[in-house]
């Protein structure tokens, strides 16, 4: 869209809004309040992030009060320092990636067939089963930390990345199963029946249908990736050696280790930690929404 087209569109939109406000003043007021609160909420989330990220590009020790919104000088010193002089990228980022990708694989491998089974098979107490799966997720995680700690200690998995992967995956599977079930519900039965009549076994039919659930698979993958990526309490409790740190733990240690927080460095580190998730969302935004809302089946 050219600038001129954008301008015409904006003018049309404003004109329309003004006309709407004239005819329905009350609705217009409600709309204005809604828009205002949405904007303030966005500001509430965006400004601190913006401030932190802008700190990443400011020279060290120039972060003060009142914060300057636009850095006067831009430097990559902080980023450079994090990447070159710390294990942030070399170890912690790699750990986080391993954990998140591992969790995605486990979640997809379990939630896809589970969701399919819930969608397609007749079973006794289906509703009860489905609800109890969700119920598991409502148990506060902190209540399970000590038992889990004991269990992992006995099995000998403490202080490994496997622990974080397993717990993160277990945490996501219930919602992922519901999502997959909901999506498979929107894929017509006829397709599998066609496959079965055509000579496919039930399992082959499932394999043929699964590619049709791509949007849901994508949404579940992103959901479990982000879930594992952001886990903080789990790695903090179940791992101790520095070589097993993941990004959130590393960020946390960042603050507490030094008496004085170096905002510039923290900003740079946070930026690096957020980047993969941001990229994922930007690239797969459409798929993510489609996966959450259901299939647009055309056959």
């Amino acid at each position: 869209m050219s600038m001129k087209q954008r301008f015409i569109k904006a003018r049309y939109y404003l004109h329309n809004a003004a006309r709407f406000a004239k005819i329905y003043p009350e609705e217009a007021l409600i709309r204005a309040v809604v828009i205002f609160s949405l904007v303030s909420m966005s500001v509430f989330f965006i400004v601190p992030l913006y401030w932190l990220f802008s700190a990443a590009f400011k020279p060290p020790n120039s972060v003060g009060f009142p914060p300057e919104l636009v850095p006067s000088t831009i430097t990559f010193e902080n980023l450079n320092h994090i990447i070159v002089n710390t294990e942030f990228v070399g170890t912690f980022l790699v750990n986080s990636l391993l954990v998140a990708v591992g969790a995605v694989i486990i979640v997809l491998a379990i939630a896809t067939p589970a969701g399919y089974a819930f969608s397609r098979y007749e079973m006794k107490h289906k509703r009860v089963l489905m609800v109890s799966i969700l119920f598991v997720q409502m148990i506060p995680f902190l209540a399970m930390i000590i038992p889990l700690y004991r269990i992992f200690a006995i099995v000998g998995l403490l202080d490994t990345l496997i622990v974080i992967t397993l717990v993160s995956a277990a945490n996501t599977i219930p919602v992922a199963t519901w999502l997959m079930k909901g999506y498979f519900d929107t894929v017509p039965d006829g397709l599998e029946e066609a496959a079965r009549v055509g000579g496919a076994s039930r399992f082959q039919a499932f394999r043929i249908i699964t590619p049709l659930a791509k949007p849901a698979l994508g949404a579940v993958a992103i959901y479990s990736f982000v879930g594992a990526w952001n886990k903080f309490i789990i790695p903090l409790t179940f791992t101790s050696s520095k070589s097993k740190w993941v990004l959130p733990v590393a960020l946390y240690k960042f603050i507490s280790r030094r008496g004085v927080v170096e905002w510039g460095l923290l900003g740079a580190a946070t930026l690096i930690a957020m980047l993969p998730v941001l990229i994922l969302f930007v690239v797969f935004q459409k798929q993510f929404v489609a996966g959450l809302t259901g299939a647009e089946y055309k056959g």
Partner: protein
Amino acid sequence: MSTIDLENVTKRFGDVTAVENVDLTIEDGELLVLVGPSGCGKTTLLRTITGLELPTEGTISVDGNDVTGIPARKRDIALVFQNFALFPHMSVEENMSFNLRMQGDLDAEEIDQRVADIAEMLDISELLDRDISELSGGQKQRVSLGRAIVTNPAAFMLDEPLANLDANLRDQMETEIVRLQKQLGITTVHVTHNQSEAMTMGDRIAVMNDGELQQLGPPEEVFYEPANLFVAKFIGSPNMNLFDATVDADGAHLLEESGPGLAVPIDLDRSDPIVLGCRPEHVLVDRDDRSGGGWATLEIAFTEFHGASKYLFFDVGEDTELIARVDSDEPFAAGETVSVGFDPEQVHAFDPATDERIDQSARTDRTRIAEGTRPSDD
């Protein structure tokens, strides 16, 4: 090619009986049409034959071999779905070769050859590389037919394959399916709720209602000798006129309060009341004032133009109408008063207690009551 035998097939879903005790033999190479209103169990019966549903009771055999417990994929019965059920993530060619690939006893070259042959037969050769989403409804239906016949199945099941097509295309596909079926000589069961489609296509028609088989026979038999009131009402368009009547030695007398109050000279050895039916095309309409028991004088309430024919509607009794079908060039108009009679050779008698047809082979009086307007036979 094969014969399919259904013996006492019953299918229940929980408390609901979808198919009740159906006995049916589908002969080798025949096109049998299963017809009935929505929810009558015809699709369930078809799915039971295919193997997608297991019957609660009864047995299904193909060529004398019991296949009741055999899964769909091993039955060698192909199914075409109402909504086509083509795989949207595969091309036309991949869809058509799907069944062959799944059954896995042919090499790639032979599969390509078979698909190409069938595509040519269905006139879709140029579509093979397309995506399913690029096809029109008719093309999708052809692809779906192709996918089903490419394996040379023992039998061919069509589940309302024409319901999603527009009217013109439907007529064309009706003809095409029949042509294809005759060409291959493949045993076929076609399910539809459309009675005219059933009569056009079927070698034999099986009329179903409430899960039960009502009548099985060639289209002519079902049309001219409906076995019960349900079949009489369901087959034929517009619906058959049905009125309560009493019987005496002179014939049937239609009640005045709930019908046209005319007499039809048929010979029935019976004293209980009956339900008398006459198809709109067998209703005689005459402009001359005919007196006598065989005729009623009625006013045309309104007319409906249907191209070659015209329907005349008469109000008789409370909320009851009588419909007559005449050639559309007959100059009948609403408001006109005419004489109406029933062709005694073309009426059907039913027992109101059992809804069953009363056999009229014992009828003696076969003369026409009068030379009224001849009904159109189209």
